[in-house]
């Protein structure tokens, strides 16, 4: 959802000078508040320091992309580990 919001923001900025004016006057937070960003992400985007709107957009893209990356699954050991002795486990595997 955040990437969709960022896409909407960037597309809007292309034809609506008000977005870039808000950015240049330090009021981009007001614009971000209208969009569907999580509070954490909005805070991160508001804190971006950049030389231009285009640079802000690219840096925002990096933040949003990083936030949308799926969390790596934690590899837990099998609950059977340690409950079956090694010999029984080996013979079970042989049968399988």
């Amino acid at each position, binding site marked *: 959802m955040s990437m969709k919001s960022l896409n909407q923001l960037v597309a809007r900025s292309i034809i609506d000078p008000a977005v870039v004016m808000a950015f240049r006057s330090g009021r981009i937070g007001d614009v971000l508040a209208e969009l569907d960003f999580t509070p954490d992400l909005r805070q991160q985007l508001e804190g971006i320091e950049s030389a*231009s*709107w285009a640079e802000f957009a690219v840096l925002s893209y990096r933040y949003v992309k990083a936030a949308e990356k799926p969390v790596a699954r934690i590899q837990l050991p099998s609950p059977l580990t340690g409950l079956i002795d090694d010999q029984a486990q080996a013979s079970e595997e042989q049968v399988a």
Partner: protein
Amino acid sequence: MIQVTREERHWFLRNMAQALVDYTSAAEPPVPVEELLKHPPAAYQEDFGVVDMYSNLWDATFARPPGQRGSIFVRVDLDPKERRHALARETLSAMITSKQGRSMGLAELLMSDLKDSAEYFASQLLAPEPMLQAYRSGGGSEARFTDAFQLPGPMAASRW
């Protein structure tokens, strides 16, 4: 300007193109590029225009005569699909050099790879992703893609 990857640049260009497509309210192909240039968003009133020219030098080029509105000067005898492609490609230069484009910092982001940027932008303006997906899911074929979207053959092949 920070270092920007090709993927990041293309993402930005897709949004630029989508903004213009949304402005035209086109729900299905072909995207009315020439109409867009003749009736642009307010932010580009002084930057979009089309002037036919007789020339063997270029298919089209954007120019901004001093103190005048910028325009794309396009060869009058181009095939209609080639004309759309040339106009779409040169639209990016019009945007970069516009007042709005300068205030966004587009030159710093896009000028170093202008040729790649302009070709990618044109492909997204003439065949935006949502329209392409709708065409595919509606059973549109590759064989008719070039006519449906009014794209030159090579662009259609690479976009499909």
